[in-house]
């Protein structure tokens, strides 16, 4: 078990190193620091200003290790900074990136955590219900509605909900954020509604398939033969065996809650990490974008290790070796 965890962590570290290499290639060789500087300062700045800007942001070293510069190069710096969480300053407006991330995490979680729990709370009972009524019109209706729901672009959900709920019905403000717990619900209601609507179709379809696959197994037939009721079969036998595929999806989603939601946050004016990322995209802020990708993959690798370990808990057949 311990040996397994250690091996898994080492592999995870390897993947993170791979991600950093990929980011280096993308952000330092495909686009050179000169390009970045020109994007931040403008096309017609004198070379001296560009050199000055590069020095300020620590982009003034040679790219690759070479004689006399085994540590004084961008590749080494890139790894050193990322691995020590010293993300430096934004390319666009010089604010420290760590500071921004710290400020954005809270608002992101206030949106994504309830969204995650509510989506699960709606999707799993709904798909159990649909799977329970398999091969009846309820099931068929459920599938058709799911496919309809997942065929609508999330943009349309956002625009539609903002227009309908915010401007015609005037139930909630169409955008904004406030850390006061009394007000926050009013601001979160609309993004939560949109988030659930946009995800529910795909979720129900996925969970239904998982539940149905388990419902057709031999041990479910055994349970019926010993006189188990259908409800009990669903809850005790089908659901428990479905936990393995469900866990993969659910646990892997948890780390990304910290990343916020790009679309919902920027549409509804929630100052979280998602909105920060969108600002970075629109302002050509490569350093912020690079950092977000890195943090995202760190969280993913962590989530994956947790998922693998959790298999051992829900499935007695899995032995972690």
């Amino acid at each position, binding site marked *: 078990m311990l040996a397994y965890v250690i091996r898994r962590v080492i592999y995870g570290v390897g993947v993170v190193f791979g991600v950093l290499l990929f980011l280096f290639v993308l952000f330092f060789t495909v686009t050179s620091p000169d390009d970045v500087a020109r994007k931040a300062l403008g096309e017609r700045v004198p070379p001296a200003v560009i050199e000055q800007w590069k020095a300020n942001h620590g982009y003034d070293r040679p790219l690759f290790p070479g004689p006399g510069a085994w540590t004084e190069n961008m590749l080494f710096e890139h790894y050193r900074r990322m691995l020590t969480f010293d993300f430096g300053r934004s390319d666009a407006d010089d604010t420290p990136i760590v500071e921004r991330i710290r400020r954005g995490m809270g608002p992101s979680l206030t949106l994504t955590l309830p969204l995650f729990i509510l989506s699960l709370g709606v999707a799993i009972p709904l798909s159990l219900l649909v799977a329970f009524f398999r091969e009846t019109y309820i099931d068929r209706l459920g599938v058709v509605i799911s496919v309809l729901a997942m065929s609508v672009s999330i943009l349309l959900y956002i625009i539609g909900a903002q227009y309908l709920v915010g401007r015609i019905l005037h139930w909630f403000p169409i955008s904004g954020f406030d850390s006061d717990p009394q007000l926050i619900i009013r601001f979160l209601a609309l993004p939560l509604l949109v988030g659930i609507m946009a995800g529910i179709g795909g979720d129900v379809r996925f969970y239904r398939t998982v539940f149905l696959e388990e419902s057709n197994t031999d041990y479910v037939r055994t349970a019926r033969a010993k006189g188990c009721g259908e409800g009990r079969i669903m809850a005790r036998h089908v659901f*428990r065996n479905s936990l393995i595929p469900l866990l993969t999806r659910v646990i892997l989603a948890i780390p990304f809650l910290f990343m916020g939601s790009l679309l919902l946050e920027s549409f509804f004016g929630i100052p979280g990490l998602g909105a920060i990322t969108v600002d970075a995209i629109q302002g050509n802020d490569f350093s912020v974008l690079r950092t977000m990708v890195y943090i995202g993959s760190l969280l993913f690798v962590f989530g994956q290790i947790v998922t693998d370990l959790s298999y051992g808990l829900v499935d007695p057949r899995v032995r972690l070796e």
Partner: protein
Amino acid sequence: MSPLLEVEGLTTCFPGTRGPLPIVDGTHLSMERGEVLALVGESGCGKSMTALSLMRLVPKPGRIEAGRVLLDGRDLLELRVTEMRAVRGSRMAMIFQEPMTSLNPVVRVGEQVVEAIRLHEPVSRAQARERCLELFAEVGIPDPQARLDVYPHQLSGGLKQRVMIAMALSTRPDLLIADEPTTALDVTIQAQIVRLLQELQRSRGMSILLITHDLGIVNELSDRVAVMYAGRIVETGSRVDIFRHATHPYTRGLLRSNPVLAAPGERLPEIAGVVPSPEDWSPGCRFASRCRHCFEPCEAEVPGATPVGEGHGVACHAVAQGRLEGDAE
């Protein structure tokens, strides 16, 4: 006394490309208390579907279209779903061909037997566990105490089948339906399971409906035999009737082609042709296309059962019209 189980005209259909196909077609069966009836036939002849129909566990999109299944005079097909659930597992229990997949992989085996007991009897968990321990000992699971808390994947195929049998017996059913209980097991384990079923049947005096294509097991275990071909019962009789005085051309062919019963040194005769698929079933006798004794009515009319002896019936036009003698050849 009335028979324990009486099946009349049971018909179970599955949708085909040209309308519903009767995979089980007008089956008649009758079982006395404490009797072992073997339902014999090739794979795909509808014997498993017959068993599942008795339990009302026909998988969708299949449906029981007609007939009666009388258990102690009560028609199971008329029962409400909840009433039927009370019958399943308590009055009649079933074990399956695939012990590997028939147990829930994430629940301890003891717990699965306890669930079966507590579904039908108001006993405490501890009492049920105690009963489970006795059952494990009765079905010959070594070290039963330790085996209560293992998961199915930690047991061998033979032990899993023993757990299945323990689960089926846990509520003292009157009728045990054993659907190919030994097919998926090693030959040595097969013999053990057959002996176990034999002992349990004698000690408990229960009835067993044994579904198999293995004539050796039929010979060892059964009191009476029903032979099924392409969805219909073609011959019923005592074990001696079937093995010594087989009358239906199909039964004769089946016995002649069995290596266990054949004389050494002879070439095994086979039945010419292949089993027709349900889509190609003729309106008459379904064996007609392969039968040496086939004549006009065979292709057109479904043969009714003709008694040829005490409790020995044959569904064959040739026998009914005296063209084929009961003890011919």
